């Protein structure tokens, strides 16, 4: 049980922390108001190598595992979470299936561009009729000669409006569905019959873009299939195991920021002649925050490390996802309470974190779905 962070990862953590402090925090309001990540920040992230942290070295990435990237994403969570969310697609969600199931020539073709940030990726599973019940997707692909013709509509797809490469799950056999009837395809931007639809307007998660993806007789060569015919559901599920760890690492950072801001504010804000930090009601909230942050960090470190060792961590990833997403909502709520009216004002980032945190109980599988996954695993594996 050695929890020492390796020196190189520590240096990456330091760099990320410094980047957040110097480049992101001074501009978090700008990101929020303009609802986009400024071009020059994206350019710097590219130069520093942030798009290819987890991509293996042979494909031009740094080959830092899930633990390392999670530790960095905790730091990104302390800035504006749009940045960590954006980078997470190129650091896993957008290519994990391709890497685990794809062919060598597909990896050679795409991964170096993903690592450099020249190819922006997306992951297309959810549809109007298929959210929690992902196996109910309607978008389908029909074989015609050496090609497949895709028809249907995805929605809520992160990076949808800007992605250069999307991994799309489609039905190839209606009778089989999740049991071999769903396949995954790589679809490039500009493929005829494929276009992003309407961009969604949201409660929070500003700076990140989600849209529909529309397929109307979209023709892709059969060689764009990821893995074998019918592997699509596995491709999607194995992607989500890792995503649940790395994306929710950002929640730990958001919660830490809530705690730190609350601590500082409570020491400074005087009511009834003393700092509110001296009231036990406030102290308990701080203690609860710190305890829950610590617990979620330990869950993350352990599960991410085990994933890097090649273990199956479906249950642990679901447990962490469930706990961390609920935890960050409680922390944002307490931080707002401790800041009183000030916490509700746009001058402070707390109202924003409050809105951003709420997403995390929905995206990448709702809390209810995480409980289903955990329970199913308990009942099956013991």
């Amino acid at each position, binding site marked *: 049980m050695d929890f020492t962070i390796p*020196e*190189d990862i520590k*240096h*990456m953590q330091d*760099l990320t922390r*410094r*980047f957040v402090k110097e480049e992101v925090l001074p501009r978090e309001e700008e990101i929020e108001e303009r609802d986009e990540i400024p071009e020059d920040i994206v350019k*710097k992230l590219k*130069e*520093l*190598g*942030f798009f290819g*942290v987890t991509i293996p070295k042979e494909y031009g990435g*740094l080959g*830092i595992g899930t633990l390392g990237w999670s530790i960095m994403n905790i730091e990104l969570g302390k800035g504006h979470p749009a940045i960590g969310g954006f980078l997470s697609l190129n650091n896993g969600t957008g290519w994990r299936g391709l890497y685990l199931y794809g062919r060598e020539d597909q990896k050679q073709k795409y991964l170096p561009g993903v690592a450099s940030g020249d190819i922006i990726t997306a992951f297309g599973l959810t549809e109007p009729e298929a959210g929690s019940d992902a196996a109910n997707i309607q978008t389908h692909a029909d074989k015609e000669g050496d090609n497949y013709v895709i028809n249907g509509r995805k929605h809520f797809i992160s990076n949808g409006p800007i992605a250069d490469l999307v991994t799309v799950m489609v039905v190839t056999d209606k009778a089989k569905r999740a049991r071999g009837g769903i396949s995954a395809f790589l679809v490039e931007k500009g493929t005829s019959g494929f276009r992003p639809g309407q961009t969604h307007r949201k409660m929070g998660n500003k700076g990140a873009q989600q849209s529909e993806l529309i397929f109307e007789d979209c023709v892709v060569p059969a060689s764009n299939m990821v893995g074998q015919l019918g592997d699509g559901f596995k491709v999607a599920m194995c992607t989500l195991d890792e995503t649940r760890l790395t994306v929710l690492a950002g929640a730990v950072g958001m919660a830490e920021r809530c705690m730190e801001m609350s601590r500082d504010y409570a020491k400074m804000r005087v009511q009834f002649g003393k700092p509110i930090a001296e009231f036990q009601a406030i102290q308990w909230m701080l203690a609860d925050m710190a305890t829950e942050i610590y617990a979620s960090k330990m869950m993350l470190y352990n599960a991410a490390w085990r994933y890097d060792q090649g273990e199956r961590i479906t249950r642990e990833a679901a447990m962490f996802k469930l706990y961390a997403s609920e935890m960050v909502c409680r922390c944002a709520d307490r931080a707002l309470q401790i800041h009183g009216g000030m916490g509700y004002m746009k001058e402070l980032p707390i109202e924003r974190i409050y809105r951003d945190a709420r997403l995390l109980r929905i995206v990448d599988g709702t809390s209810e779905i995480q409980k289903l996954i955990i329970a199913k695993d308990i009942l099956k594996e013991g």
Partner: protein
Amino acid sequence: MNIVCCIKQVPDTATVIKIDPEEKHIQREGITYIVSPYDEFAVEEALQIKEKLGDTTVTVVTMGPERAKEALRQCFAMGADEGYHLVDDAFDDSDTYATATTLAAAIKKIDFDLIICGKHAVDGDTSQVGAQVAELLDIPQVSMIMKEEINDDKKTAVVNRQLEGGEEVLEVQLPSLWTCQKGLNEPRYPTLKGIMGTKKKPITDFTVSDLGLSPEEVGLLGSKTDVSKMYPPPPRLPGRIVEGEPEEAVKELAKLLREEAKVI
């Protein structure tokens, strides 16, 4: 060209410094360390020279305990090529003269055309080491540079140094030693790839005997000054608002400034 940068590992400027009970040292527990910011200017400038001239090696040298290797690797992550670590218990408690003696002895063993230091280290704050190293090596020195340009012959350079209210432009021979002032450059971020590559770059350790020095010439024994006491500055008293009508308040203020603060 071979450029040597002297870099020092110092407590993070954001750390709250506590003094140990003996009143000779600061407490080391719980401190995070960084490369002294002025030394980052030195490394940045060396890297910019390398990018401009090509065919240049940037060497970083530090004296300090085992943990100072981390500072060398931080410079590697920025782009420095190799490092020397002057590490020996005998170096403990060096003053500026002993520090400069040790650094100069090490640099003599390295082929160099230019030495760049920080203007001052943000902990010891004496601004002496750079100048002393130059004297011990008997080479010209330019302190507090704001701008530099190495001439095509690579034997001379034009260097601007900061003066009170202006700048001085000098031509200087190489090899020489320069110290960096704030404003010279913006140190780059280390890249993630740079961080990954740091373990492959060589660090050579030098002990007292490797440098051909005797233990009496370095550390506490080789020091010409002795710290007799270290103490924090007295805490600042809170400000006071003088109330009342302006005319009365000003009179009261003048009285306080003369009688209590004793500044007028």
